[in-house]
């Protein structure tokens, strides 16, 4: 099979598979070859799961030949961030040297759900060690090396789902699963010019996923289009007895044409303060496009310490989740020098302050919902900055070196958001636009993102030399 299938959205690949113009086995071979050949260039891959992939692809091919088509992910290759447990001797490393040989004897629920949908697991993808929860300040914070951006190989692919971002952007897999505690899906999606969907907290089971922060962690897709994100979300969403935070709300992706719909968008006052000029300029151009799709109005949240609320919850829960790794001193084996000691500072968080953050989180969630209730989405730059250079420092709201009200509120309140590319800047790097909605409104924000992508062509551009 020729490589002209690379950079086709999942929806188009699925049409080819369903019509039996595309062979799942041949498709898997194309992407497995690219993962093995090009993965090292981007430090994108921890393990190529060739054996499991070919077994799943052969099963898909046989089922489809027998008329048992499971749906749009049947026979579609994908990669999973290496914090999702996989059985069969496939390591699950959490991106961290101390765990680089560790294997589980079970599959994470998301992996099982994708298998049930007929998707083909081709790779475990690189990530920032322990999903960035130890305080890293630089791209080189994984035992696999810094995530390299396919748009500019001197730039970072983003974190912490760095491999999920670079693998999709480089055409190594059609889609990938990432995770977000604060920014780890939207950041690599933005840095790599992709669509990235952070679902509502509780929409997707976290069972079998590394816990960084129990009340903040979410799993979601990175793909070439917002439409593909919807297809993947439908496959991985749903109640799971093994994750008591999941809810009994069935999710069916609504792929209906958003063209006839008029959207009501809100922009938080001062949201571009602190953004790089180029990011601000591309966002202003995006607003012009959005005004063609509906209305755009300025809105405001009350003055609360949003970043501090979410940061305190994150630091406290991460310190507890990794208590064994921190107190045993095993963090000394991590790659980024600052990851070897910064977490010790978290002993300074008092229980009373953590609880205050949880109480303020309730206020934050209610205020965010009040602002969002009359809107279809809040829109904002996906990130305040373009991708950091590999040798540079990563500006991060988590550490307080950047502000990210949308991220603090969105993650702290568990709200869904989708980022899509909205332009390019110097050095050939993409910027992004995010749509954030009320809880459980993934279909609304996906419709808005699809409408934006119907009016623009940024998502149809791909890196040269891949």
């Amino acid at each position, binding site marked *: 099979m020729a490589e002209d299938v690379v950079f086709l959205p999942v929806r188009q690949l699925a049409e080819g598979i369903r019509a039996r113009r595309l062979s799942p086995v041949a498709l898997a071979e194309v992407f497995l070859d690219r993962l093995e050949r090009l993965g090292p260039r981007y430090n994108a891959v921890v393990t190529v799961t060739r054996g499991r992939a070919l077994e799943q692809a052969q099963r898909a091919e046989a089922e489809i030949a027998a008329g048992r088509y499971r749906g749009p992910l049947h026979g579609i290759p994908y990669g999973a961030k290496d914090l999702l447990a996989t059985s069969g001797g496939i390591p699950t490393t959490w991106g961290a040297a101390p765990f680089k040989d560790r294997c589980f004897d079970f599959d994470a629920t998301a992996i099982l759900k994708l298998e049930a949908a007929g998707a083909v697991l081709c790779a475990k993808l690189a990530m920032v060690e322990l999903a960035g929860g130890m305080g890293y300040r630089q791209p080189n914070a994984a035992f696999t090396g810094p995530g390299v951006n396919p748009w500019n190989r001197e730039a970072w692919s983003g974190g912490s789902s760095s491999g999920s971002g670079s693998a999709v952007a480089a055409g190594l897999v059609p889609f990938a699963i990432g995770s977000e505690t604060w920014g780890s899906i939207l950041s690599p999606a933005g840095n790599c010019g992709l669509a990235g969907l952070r679902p509502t907290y509780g929409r997707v089971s976290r069972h079998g996923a590394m816990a960084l922060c129990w009340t903040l962690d979410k799993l979601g897709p990175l793909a070439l289009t917002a439409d593909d994100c919807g297809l993947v979300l439908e496959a991985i969403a749903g109640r799971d007895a093994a994750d008591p935070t999941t809810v009994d709300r069935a999710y069916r992706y609504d792929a209906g044409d958003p063209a006839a719909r008029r959207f009501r968008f809100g922009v938080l006052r001062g949201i571009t303060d602190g953004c790089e000029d180029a990011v601000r300029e591309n966002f202003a151009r995006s607003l012009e496009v959005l005004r063609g799709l509906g209305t755009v109005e300025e809105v405001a949240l009350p003055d609360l310490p949003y970043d*501090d609320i979410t940061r305190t919850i994150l630091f406290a829960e991460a310190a507890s989740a990794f208590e064994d790794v921190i107190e045993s001193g095993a963090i000394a084996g991590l790659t980024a020098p600052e990851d070897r000691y910064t977490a010790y*500072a978290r002993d300074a968080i008092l229980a009373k302050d953590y609880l205050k953050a949880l109480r303020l989180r309730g206020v934050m969630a209610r205020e965010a919902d009040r602002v969002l209730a009359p809107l279809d989405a809040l829109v904002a730059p996906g990130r305040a900055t373009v991708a950091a250079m590999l040798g540079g420092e990563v500006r991060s709201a988590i*550490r307080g070196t950047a502000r990210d009200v949308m991220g603090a509120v969105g993650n702290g309140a568990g709200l869904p958001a989708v980022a899509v590319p909205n332009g390019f800047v110097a050095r050939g790097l993409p910027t992004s636009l995010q749509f954030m909605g009320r809880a459980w409104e993934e279909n609304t924000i996906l419709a808005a993102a699809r409408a934006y992508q119907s009016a623009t062509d940024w998502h149809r551009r791909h890196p040269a030399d891949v």
Partner: protein
Amino acid sequence: MSDGDAVRAEVETMLALVRERYGGRLDAEQLAGVRTAIEAIVLASRALRAVRLTNADEPAQPFAAYRAEP
């Protein structure tokens, strides 16, 4: 005591705790990094404490009594 002095005092107290627990593993440069991280934590905590809440403002945290089903 000025606000700045109060912050510094709180940072030093917390740093002493961390030094007591983990000091044997940390060199001077790492301790300086820990101090910077504690400063950020102390400032964040003070920002949280500055917001007044009522007795009715509960943590946004689900808890349910547990009973194993047969």
